[in-house]
């Protein structure tokens, strides 16, 4: 039996029709079943005790901040029946790079195996404050670095739609948990497509909000200027419900915008009548898989039938996006991952004596090959003599990519429609030895991160018998019309009850 929708679960718990703990218990049972055995999908790295997270405000939180920086959580009281409990009893899967108190936070890295955070990520506190329950921590590519969830130190996750294939990544565990019906919604993080691409490959909805919309406090950083927590849902509504609960300003994150959480649920049925949907030519190249092209044509036809004007547009700097992304993301990662040095937490090589040995041995032993590759790339791109040629130039191109989008919005386009991924889910192991082909999985998704704009992947039928995702993008802070367009597409394809 699949999870009931988050909306329905929360309604029934608030109304007292079912006990608040039951949806969590049922989700835990489904999770064990889905992950069990050699053909299990291995979505979770750890599972909660059913009793362990019934308290929305854990006793041992982070040290209190001063008044000026105090992070006030919405609705920290947890009386059932409270309309603020929009997630009452809803079981949520949480990507294992978000800090939680009860469960380890490993980032799927040997380095952090068994690491327990002394504080909880703002998004986790917020979903608990809304009545949500953490089912467990989901698998990912180590530190979010990958597009298949094969770069997990604890083994890959399988795609529930075809267990011989990858679920996409890096948030593959969360996508798989939703696709397998274990939970109605889940948290992921999206640095270059890590929510949208696995959503597309698993046939679920995945949203990356505007940079700054959701707090990054407690999200273990991969590339800080690109990382954003995102949500998965079995439907647009469930992804939106969870996003609304975790959004809004957080004084603990200087890059979180001083804006209240947007009203997403109230605008879900706004439709697309009168809106202009742009299709950027750079995203439907001649080389595009004809089946994916057919799905895109269908999607644009559905939007047109719903009253949107379809327009072909151009984002000329798109072809520089992947190299730009990899220069910037690896540069930031090389610095963000410097703290994993074996001195304070995580792996310390027992044979290391001198300081330099501690660093070398611990990092060699603790990091997987893709993480090492990216640290080396990023360190190189910031080095004296290469800094301007790589990091500096990439920053300039990033500004051009953001400008491309601004020009399109200024021309009256409301939403852009593109494929999410150039291919459907590929077989496990197919690209493991070919980093460049793996990096090209992100070709349609990295631009939203570089420009900081919101984007969503919605199921758009199948190609080659596997799920295909349509990506929609909107101007910064326009999540509400973005998700209304996503909902239109979803309904035209008969989904999202």
């Amino acid at each position, binding site marked *: 039996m699949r999870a009931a929708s988050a909306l329905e679960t929360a309604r029934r718990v608030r109304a007292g029709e079912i006990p608040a703990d039951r949806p969590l218990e049922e989700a835990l049972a489904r999770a064990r079943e889905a992950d069990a055995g050699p053909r299990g999908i291995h979505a979770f790295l750890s599972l909660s005790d059913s009793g362990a997270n019934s308290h929305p405000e854990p006793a041992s939180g982070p040290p209190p901040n001063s008044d000026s*920086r105090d992070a006030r959580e919405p609705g920290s009281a947890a009386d059932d029946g409270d309309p603020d409990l929009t997630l009452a009893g809803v079981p949520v899967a949480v990507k294992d790079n978000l800090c939680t108190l009860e469960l380890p936070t490993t*980032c799927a890295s040997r380095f952090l195996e068994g690491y327990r955070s*002394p504080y909880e*990520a703002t998004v986790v506190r917020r979903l608990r404050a809304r009545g949500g329950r953490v089912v467990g921590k989901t698998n990912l590519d180590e530190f979010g670095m990958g597009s298949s969830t094969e770069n997990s130190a604890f083994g890959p996750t399988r795609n529930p739609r075809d267990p011989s294939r990858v679920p996409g990544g890096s948030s593959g565990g969360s996508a798989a948990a939703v696709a397998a019906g274990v939970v109605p919604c889940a948290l992921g993080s999206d640095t270059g497509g890590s929510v949208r691409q696995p959503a597309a490959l698993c046939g679920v909805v995945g949203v990356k909000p505007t940079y700054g919309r959701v707090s990054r406090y407690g999200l273990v950083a991969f590339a800080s200027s690109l990382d954003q927590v995102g949500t998965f849902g079995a439907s647009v509504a469930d992804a939106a419900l969870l996003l609304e609960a975790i959004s809004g300003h957080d004084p603990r994150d200087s890059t979180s915008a001083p804006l209240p959480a947007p009203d997403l649920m109230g605008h879900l049925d706004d439709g697309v009548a009168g809106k202009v949907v742009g299709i950027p030519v750079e995203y439907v190249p001649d080389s595009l898989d004809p089946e994916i092209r057919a799905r895109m044509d269908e999607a644009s036809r559905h939007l047109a039938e719903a009253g949107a004007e379809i327009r072909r547009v151009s984002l000329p700097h798109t072809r520089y996006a992947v190299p730009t992304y990899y220069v910037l993301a690896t*540069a930031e990662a090389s610095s963000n991952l*410097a703290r994993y040095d074996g001195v*304070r937490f995580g792996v310390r090589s027992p044979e290391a004596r001198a300081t330099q040995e501690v660093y070398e041995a611990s990092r060699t032993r603790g990091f997987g090959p893709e993480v090492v590759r990216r640290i080396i790339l990023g360190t190189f791109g910031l080095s004296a003599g290469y*800094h301007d040629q790589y990091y500096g130039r990439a920053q300039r191109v990033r500004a051009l990519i953001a400008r491309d989008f601004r020009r399109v919005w200024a021309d009256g386009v409301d939403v852009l429609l593109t494929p999410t991924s150039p291919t459907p889910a590929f077989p496990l192991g197919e690209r493991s030895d070919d980093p460049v082909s793996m990096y090209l999985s992100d070709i349609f998704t990295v631009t939203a991160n570089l420009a900081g704009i919101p984007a969503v992947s919605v199921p758009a039928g199948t190609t080659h018998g596997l799920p295909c995702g349509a990506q929609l993008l909107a101007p910064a802070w326009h999540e509400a019309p973005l998700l209304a367009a996503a909902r239109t597409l979803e309904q035209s394809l008969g989904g999202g009850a």
Partner: protein
Amino acid sequence: MTGRAGGEKGTAAPAAAPSVAGVEWHPDPAGEMEAVIGLEIHVQLRTREKLFCADVPEFGVDPNTRVCPVCLGLPGALPVLNREAVELAMRAALGFGCTIHQRSVFERKNYFYPDLPKGYQISQFEEPLATGGLLEVRMGEDGQETFPVRIRRMHLEEDAGKSIHDRVPDRTAVDLNRTGTPLVEMVSEPDLRSPAQVRAYLDQVKRILEYLDVSDCNMEEGSLRVDANVSIRPRGSRELGTKTELKNLNSFSGVERALEVEIARQVALVRSGGQVTHETLLWDERRQTVRSMRSKEDSQDYRYFPDPDLPPVLVSPAWIQAARDALPELPEARRTRFVEAYSLPAYDAGVLTARRPLADFYEAVVRAHSDGDAKEVANWVMGPVLALANTRSREVEALGLEPEGLAELLALVSEGRVNRRAARTILERMVESGAGGAGTPEAIMEAEGLAQVSDDGRIQEWVHEVVAAHPDEVARFRSGERRLQGFFMGEVMKRSRGKADPGEVARILGARLKGV
């Protein structure tokens, strides 16, 4: 470090050995070479909280007790800028005449070190908070000689933790209490030419920082730390020589001494035909020598880039103006005002304004002693009061002496109710008892019977006794040994146990010695 031959004019000069402790400093007796010195000063700001988290920086508490996820660099933790630190840094920068930039940027300085938890230090690099200051430094006995030092930049950054090498045998312990404490790094242009100038500059910088009330300025606790860059060149040359960087300078006198030793080393090296190597040197205070820490060839590449966790720091013109308006009076201005308003000699004004609490104390006494003479107050503060502070190794404000108490004592003197000698006794009692407030001078005077005796009869009596007891001296005085007047004065005062009015004693004694 043996250099290649080729120091043309070095051949004739004997290689002067680097000086050692106790030997007078003669790096270059012929005066052909001059030193070029620039300083980097790290000033810990006395904020309530750390730069990017809410921990309270404290010195001397148990290791690793003033830490949180942010300053520990735990996964997922993020920095949030402390506005108070920006405020104090702006005040400091304005105090040295710098221009505050409306936009400045925090960057990551990447390097591995056990006491640097994130593997990078958040600092400012390309776009610092402030640039382009100037300080006129006073030197010499009366401070009449001055020279300018340009301040290149002042920027905000976070402090690292401390590596402790002597606490756990064979291991290095790390204390992260200091991690994240806000620092202002103040970089001078290479405008200093001698260790003595450096000392004068440092004294003045410290004085200004204290006036600005932005830092504790305590070198022992590390709230003020100095690194020096030094090179030598032929006097009159405009070019800069290869510099070395001196670290581990733990006191102002250590800075001075280390520079003397290093300049002497460089001069000797060049004179013997060698070349200075660009390197970082550690000052060994105990052995009074420098040793190489690392050469610049294997120097670090810090891979600076803007910290994506922190948006640019934006300060409005209104905020800058408010900080400028709130600047306290600085030592130079106060010194000038003291000369003008209180008719003090430049020397007195310099001594009294050397520290802000001392100047505050002086002015409070002057205010409380409103009908008195400001110069007289200066004499008392600079004389007996400072002497008491020195013997107790305390600052004047920590003596327990209240300005009202001292003013009252001075009033007793000016009213002729106690003489100076008794007043000094009363002052000592006030400090000893720790009761230095108003009312105490008179109480002590009464209790100890120190009121001045101006009564003619009593003084006549003491004079008579002294004259009678010293017939020989009287005879010598009368035969012209006028300097014995002081001896008689002393004897009479002794008999009065210090209470006699010295003016009256002089008058009566004079008449008696002359008359009979």
